[in-house]
């Protein structure tokens, strides 16, 4: 019985690497930030679901057809689309090591983003002034929550953009700054993707109802 088993100590030794691997700084940042964006995507999914449920509960109040100005929304969409293009140009300038061009494109992105926010705030104040504020009906509550959350994201994106412009101005295109710019790039383009859903499901389909 015992003769069949190999005597102890003669089998091939197996080695296990128990020490934690050393990671270069920031090696997992992009994946981590992508996972954050996916969780953010779930927030917007639930707000879209709320819009889908409440979007036609007008409580006898104004309807999308009476309230939404599609020309304004089209201009707004153009602003966000331009800002996506200018951010892409900024990243390419950064990869080429052109700091001045990078800062210029970032400034252009910031201006388009600010224009988007300005138009959105004008639209909100106009609606509230007309008595179509978030407390008017479930339709308007879900509208302000969904579009407002997107606008809040753009606001934080603009703050982040300004901080990064200062950092690039002070410390140049070091690897840490390029990594941060890449994260903001994902964030900014992600917000444009969410906006596609907003202008389609909220504005266009709302007016068609």
């Amino acid at each position, binding site marked *: 019985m015992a003769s069949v088993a190999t005597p102890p100590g003669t089998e091939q030794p197996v080695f296990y690497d128990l020490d934690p691997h050393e990671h270069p700084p920031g090696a997992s940042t992009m994946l981590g930030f992508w996972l954050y964006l996916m969780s953010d995507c779930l927030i917007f999914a639930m707000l879209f*679901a709320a819009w889908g449920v409440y979007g036609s509960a007008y409580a006898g109040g104004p309807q999308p057809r009476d309230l939404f100005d599609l020309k304004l929304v089209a201009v707004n969409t153009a602003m966000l689309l331009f800002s996506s293009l200018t951010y892409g140009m900024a990243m390419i300038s950064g990869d080429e090591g052109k700091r001045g061009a990078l800062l210029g494109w970032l400034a252009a992105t910031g201006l388009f983003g600010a224009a988007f926010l300005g138009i959105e705030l004008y639209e909100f104040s106009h609606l509230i002034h007309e008595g179509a504020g978030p407390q008017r009906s479930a339709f308007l509550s879900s509208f302000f929550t969904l579009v407002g959350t997107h606008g809040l994201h753009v606001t934080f994106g603009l703050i982040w953009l300004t901080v990064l412009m200062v950092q690039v101005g002070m410390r140049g295109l070091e690897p840490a700054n390029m990594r941060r710019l890449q994260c903001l790039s994902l964030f900014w383009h992600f917000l444009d*993707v969410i906006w*596609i859903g907003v202008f389609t499901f909220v504005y266009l389909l709302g007016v068609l109802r």
Partner: protein
Amino acid sequence: MADTRSAAAHDAHGHDGHDAHGDAPHGSRRGYLIGFALSVLLTAVPFGVVMAGGVAAPVAAGLCMVLALVQIVVHMVFFLHMNSKSEAGWTMMALIFTIIVVVIALTGTLWVMYHMNANMMPDMSQMSGGM
């Protein structure tokens, strides 16, 4: 002795693989401009159809949704540089998982809430008032 040397060798080997997927995919000017042109087209058409009117509402709504879906894919490819290789495929895995969760949450919510609404008794408020 042999133990530590082998572990060190393994560690060094593991590191070679790490640097390879450290850098994120980059776009080109041409890629961004193609994505931008496609996005302009895919935005202008639905806005034009709805603002001009004349197209039956269900048809226009269907067209808007299809074009939005196409534009989301365009943005994913040309602006967010999604591909199945970055971060050893984990970004794509996370995206697929997210899409599955989003689809379940959206269809589930709309389905359940639509039926809740449709199956409400017409005069529920009066009935409870009479009790």
